């Protein structure tokens, strides 16, 4: 039986079709620095942590300046301290941001001597044994899972992602190891050196989500990573075979074609499962979850009683002296990283680019703390941007668009600020991959225009919401005032009535007059009686 099933799976592997997503482009990988192992940087003296969540909304600090914090302690909701030390300040400081903005940051003065102590503390606190047997769906959520952020670039909290499933069954868990963007190699380096830990993390993730199927998708341009991962996965699957009680599914490894942006969520789902996610549907609606391979590794770290407060960053670019992959604690400044990797020399003549060459943006200074979103720092030669010329309607942009949009039409409307038409043309589904920019023969900055239009769209939606809210508040106030007015009017009316009733009492004056008359009469009678008595005397 087992033989048959293994035969079937191998047959399936042989006949597995390569699915393709629409659009996309072939790009040279240009991934240098993979020959050296991942360096771990020394802990910097100071870490700066922006008090922002993944979508840049402000977070409320749970600590105040002067507090002593230990590694793993919550500094804010979802933000764990990456080191033991003291909070020296909460200040407005520049962050990695395309607009060069500032944000409130928690500054931690670190104590590197406290590191082993923190590790011991962590092992004491989390009671899960490292090699405890895993059963699907029964894995308890340790509080530190909440500190894991997606390490693929968006830094979306892992728990929120899992919770988005609701009570739907997770049919397919896709581990995203495509890393399709040129020059970025942090995931590849991680897979080459930490395949076993990654698979350990994946197994825990499978247990956590009770996934019915688990696919690891790696681009075929990473043979060494595929080899290492395959070994680790097979070893793990063998133990699963040996353990008849386990309900964990086996991990499948799928080699996918190298094509940008196959690592984006929807193209990845398409190439691994041949499933088209219809517009306005979410992968979780289909029971699909995509988790980055580095995030899976972080899950593994948590279950090994370690911390998920660092990430691997690729240092690359044509002016980089030593391209490499380094593991850095969140909150480390770019300057520290560049200094430690001997890349600080050529900074003056270069531009610093955070994020991939297509999806990232330039920053104007290097004293910026890295976050979970920073997967790549590029040191590039300064170059003049190409001057855009008129669109010749060649539609190369539409052909290359992985989101199946019409960039040319979108660009017209976005330029004219016609955000309504942009919305009709599904602007919100643009993943800002930059394919259209690369293929455009007229060098039109399409992606930048779409980013602009998307911000405008967001602002308009917010404005409309605020207007609606203001209207509701205005109307309820009007109603309240009207009610008060009515109540007052009624009070007035009542008082008037009371006065009126007094008046009617006054109208009954005859009584008084008669009473007076009676009183006078009495007095008169009494006087008469007195007079009479005098006469009698």
């Amino acid at each position, binding site marked *: 039986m087992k033989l048959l099933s293994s035969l079937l799976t191998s047959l399936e592997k042989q006949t597995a079709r390569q699915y393709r997503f629409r659009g996309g482009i072939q790009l040279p990988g240009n991934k240098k620095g993979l020959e050296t192992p991942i360096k771990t940087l020394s802990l910097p003296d100071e870490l700066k942590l922006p008090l922002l969540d993944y979508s840049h909304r402000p977070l409320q600090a749970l600590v105040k300046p002067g507090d002593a914090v230990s590694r793993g302690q919550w500094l804010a909701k979802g933000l764990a301290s990456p080191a033991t030390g003291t909070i020296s300040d909460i200040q407005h400081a520049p962050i990695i941001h395309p607009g060069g903005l500032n944000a409130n940051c928690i500054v931690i003065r670190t104590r590197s001597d406290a590191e082993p102590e923190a590790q011991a503390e962590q092992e004491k606190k989390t009671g899960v044994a490292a090699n405890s047997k895993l059963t699907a769906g029964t894995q308890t959520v340790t509080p530190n899972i909440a500190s894991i952020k997606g390490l693929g670039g968006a830094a979306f909290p892992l728990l929120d992602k899992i919770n988005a499933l609701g009570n739907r069954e997770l049919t397919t868990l896709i581990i995203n190891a495509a890393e399709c963007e040129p020059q970025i190699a942090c995931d590849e380096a991680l897979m080459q050196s930490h395949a076993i830990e990654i698979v350990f993390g994946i197994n825990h993730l499978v247990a956590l989500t009770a996934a019915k199927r688990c696919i690891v998708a790696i681009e075929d341009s990473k043979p060494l990573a595929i080899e290492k991962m395959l070994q680790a996965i097979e070893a793990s699957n063998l133990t699963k075979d040996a353990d008849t009680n386990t309900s964990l599914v086996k991990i499948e490894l799928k080699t996918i074609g190298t094509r940008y942006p196959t690592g984006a969520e929807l193209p990845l789902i398409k190439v691994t499962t041949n499933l088209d996610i219809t517009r306005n549907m979410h992968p979780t609606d289909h029971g699909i979850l995509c988790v980055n391979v580095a995030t899976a590794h972080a899950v593994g770290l948590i279950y090994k009683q370690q911390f998920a407060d660092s990430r691997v960053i690729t240092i690359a670019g044509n002016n980089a002296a030593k391209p490499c992959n380094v593991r850095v604690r969140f909150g480390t400044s770019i300057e520290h990283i560049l200094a430690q990797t001997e890349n600080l020399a050529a900074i003056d003549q270069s531009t610093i680019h955070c994020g991939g060459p297509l999806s990232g943006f330039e920053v104007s200074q290097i004293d910026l703390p890295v976050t979970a979103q920073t997967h790549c720092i590029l040191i590039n030669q300064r170059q003049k941007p190409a001057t855009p010329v*008129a669109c010749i*309607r060649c539609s190369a942009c539409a052909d290359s668009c992985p989101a199946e949009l*019409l960039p040319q039409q979108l660009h017209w409307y976005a330029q004219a600020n016609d955000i309504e038409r942009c919305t009709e*043309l*599904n602007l919100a589904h643009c993943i800002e991959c930059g394919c259209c920019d690369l293929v455009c023969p007229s060098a039109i900055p399409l992606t930048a225009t779409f980013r602009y239009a998307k911000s405008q769209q967001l602002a308009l939606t917010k404005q409309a919401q605020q207007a609606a809210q203001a209207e509701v508040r205005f109307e309820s106030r009007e109603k309240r005032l009207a009610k008060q007015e009515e109540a007052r009017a009624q009070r007035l009316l009542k008082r008037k009535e009371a006065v009126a009733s007094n008046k009617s009492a006054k109208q009954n004056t005859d009584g008084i007059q008669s009473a007076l008359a009676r009183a006078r009469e009495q007095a008169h009678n009494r006087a008469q009686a007195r007079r009479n008595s005098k006469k009698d005397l």
Partner: protein
Amino acid sequence: MFTVMLALLPGTAALAFVVSPAILINILISIVVALILESLVLVLRSKPVARSLSDGSIVLAAWLFALCLPPLLPLWQLVIGAAMLTLLGKHVYGGLGQNPFNPAMVGYAVLLVSFPQTMTLWFAPDALNQYTFTELLNFKLNPDALNTIISATSSTTNTTGFDAFTQATPLEQVRIRRLLQPDLLNSSAQLPVRAFDQVQMQTSPQAFEATPDGTVLTTPVSVAWPWVSSAFAIGGVFLLYKKTISWHIPTSLLLSMCVLHGLHSLLTHLPALSVAEAVFYGSAVYAAFFIATDPVTAATSQAGKLVYGTGIGCLIFFIRAFGGYPDGIAFAVLLMNLCVPLIDHLVMRATCK
């Protein structure tokens, strides 16, 4: 743009070799005129002249336009055509990327409806070989000299001199022979017969009579034109290989045209073009790869391109088979240019649901 120019070289060379080197004069002059006018317009519109010219779009348009012209078209008409191309075809709409109609075809169509006689004056392949380049230039500058020579040739040879010297393109011959069918001549009002056709029919009716073996074309020209078409096809394949153009428009255009021509030749009792003749004896190949694929005026989506190409292919057939012109490229392309906004809109609506 420059890849397209490179791809035009074999076709241009073939045309110059087969028809006359005067074609090169046409190209040169129309490029110069278009460049001058474009610079002027750019200055008037206060746009950066050098940057706009360097994209090569106007050079290419003028080149494509000149390739459609008969070799000895009088110079002043050529200038008018090039001017129409630049001004009416491109700049009245706002320049590169804004024009709804293919500029080269606008220039050609203006000339064709304004000067039908000179615009259909083609020559037998060897007829012009006796003249030097300067003489050819002289013909272009001074149309009267040309007429003198034509009439002189006719009188001395006392045969069908006019025909020996000037010659209708193969498609023109087929069309006129169709018009000469007795049942059609009796009711010639049914088909638009241009005055020029009648003149040609009267001067050399024997040229249009059916040959004994039943083939339509016997003149040397029938050998020459497929060479030109093949040369253009080589350029087109090069463009496909370089991914400068997509396969959608050329394929759908040629396919729809072939299907209709095939059906027509099967079903009609009148002389009609066979599929191979339809493809190689006109400018269909040239249009499929170089004219219809102009990205500015073509439909943008892949589905839209298929519709657009098919539309042009059908229109070419209908104009050739039932219309007033032997080869309907220009009007087919311009008519489909008209439909592009609608095609794009419908495709957009279908994809953006």
